[in-house]
């Protein structure tokens, strides 16, 4: 299985478009959004400045891109192309394929997080304690597993021409409504009520809690845990269904 992870990784690193969107793009977007903001104005409804706030959002967005895009479309394509069937004729355990995909996506998501942090610290003077940097990296990285599971589920749910639009709608919907591109406090009230329950919102809130050195909200943790159970359960169920059909 290690050899499959290695090969998946080689392939991901060779794909410039994928690398650009998951590693470089979040940092660029961070500079565009936070570029003109001064470092003292607080985000409405939050104790954080805009650059500090957006740094976590964009790091989360980068990790989301790497794991969601890395999994869904490729799994759907390789399932249809028959590569998944071919792998089932090897000693690789059934789940090995999905695990290798997720592991390689996680390796790509780490630099996308770190690069956003580096850009924020260097260009926008974001300053945090050492433990906060480490905790942020760990939390955002671990939290991306929720969306890796979602990517797997989408890869087994959709096929053919449907997978791209479904992935895109999910991806942009979750990013925007979850407040990764702009603080949800700028949304109208009814939309804020919805956004609050999205896993992406909880994901970013986790990082913002660390930035403020306070414990995360129970609701955010609960949303993330429940989302993970739902997505992973859905992925496992769809995977089994696909295996029986193939």
């Amino acid at each position: 299985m290690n050899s499959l992870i290695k090969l998946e990784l080689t392939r991901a690193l060779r794909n410039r478009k994928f690398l650009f969107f998951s590693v470089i793009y979040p940092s660029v977007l961070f500079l565009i959004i936070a570029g003109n903001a001064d470092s003292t104005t607080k985000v409405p409804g939050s104790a954080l400045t805009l650059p500090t706030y957006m740094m976590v959002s964009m790091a989360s967005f980068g990790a989301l891109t790497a794991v969601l895009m890395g999994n869904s479309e490729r799994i759907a394509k390789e399932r249809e192309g028959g590569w998944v069937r071919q792998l089932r004729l090897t000693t690789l355990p059934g789940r090995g394929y999905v695990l290798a995909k997720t592991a390689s996506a996680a390796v790509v998501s780490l630099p996308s997080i770190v690069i956003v942090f580096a850009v924020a610290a260097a260009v926008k003077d974001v300053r945090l304690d050492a433990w906060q940097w480490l905790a942020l990296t760990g939390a955002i990285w671990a939290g991306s597993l929720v969306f890796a599971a979602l990517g797997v589920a989408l890869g087994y749910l959709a096929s053919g021409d449907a997978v791209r639009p479904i992935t895109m709608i999910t991806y942009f919907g979750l990013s925007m409504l979850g407040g990764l591109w702009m603080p949800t406090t700028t949304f109208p009230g009814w939309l804020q009520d919805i956004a609050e329950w999205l896993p992406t919102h909880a994901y970013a809130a986790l990082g913002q809690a660390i930035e403020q050195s306070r414990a995360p909200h129970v609701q955010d943790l609960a949303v993330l845990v429940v989302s993970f159970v739902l997505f992973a359960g859905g992925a496992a169920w769809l995977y089994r269904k696909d295996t029986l059909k193939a």
Partner: protein
Amino acid sequence: MTTTASVVAFDQVSKAYDAVRAVDGLTLALRPGETVALLGPNGAGKSTTLDLLLGLKKPDSGTVRLFGTSPRDAIVAGRVGAMLQSGGLMDEVTVAELVRLACDLHPKPYRPSEVLSRAGIEQIADRKVNKLSGGQAQRVRFALATAGDSDLIVLDEPTTGMDVTTRQAFWATMREQADQGRTVLFATHYLEEADAVADRVLVLHRGRLLADGTAAEIKAKAGARRISFDLADTVDEAALRGLPFLTSLTVSGPTVRIQSTDADATVHALYGLGVYPRNLEVAGLGLEQAFVAITTAEEAKSK
């Protein structure tokens, strides 16, 4: 511990999709060292049979055993190498990388360089998998199927997309595999391939095993040649029916169509009748017609 020496054993295996019975009560056993062709037209159930054999599909009823264990256990033990017709390849990696992966995943692997050269793909080792021609991709699939020292090699329509030269080279490689004592099972719809390569031919039609024997036996069973000609005079059917080696006769207007197991003798006797056949054609029986011949014979027998 079972004492059966069967490499593959199907016992009353059935598999249906909705109302269609893709495989219908199939019972068969492959012995070690055999090269076996699974022959049948499209839709005969060949791919489903191989999927069941490899454990990619579960039978609705009956059992499939490989080396006395389940297909999955046999694969995990490294005893089976397989090349699927629908076997996709991983995109954006090179041929060499993919072959190395296959070797890494096999419990009794060969060296990647060995596998590449045996499959005749050293020259394209650095090429990206998604930039290959159909025939080249088939050779890569073959390399994946032979990445390790497996006892059984299963190939689904392996020469699809290959030109004549590649096809011949491919079968030469296959024969080497068989000569090393491996059991080889391949599905094909070309009678000639089965004829040239296999020790044993299984004829599959509508999910059932119609015939099981050497290629020569199958062809004899099917009636080897078809003869057609036009007669200007009134056709004397009774006289034609008396021709030697005749297996079937149809007359439509002036046109006479005959199937014969010895076309030379039949044509010779035809001239002996004193008739003058025009537009005489003698041709090998297509597989499609061979199936019709075998099916008709089987159905007549079961009545």
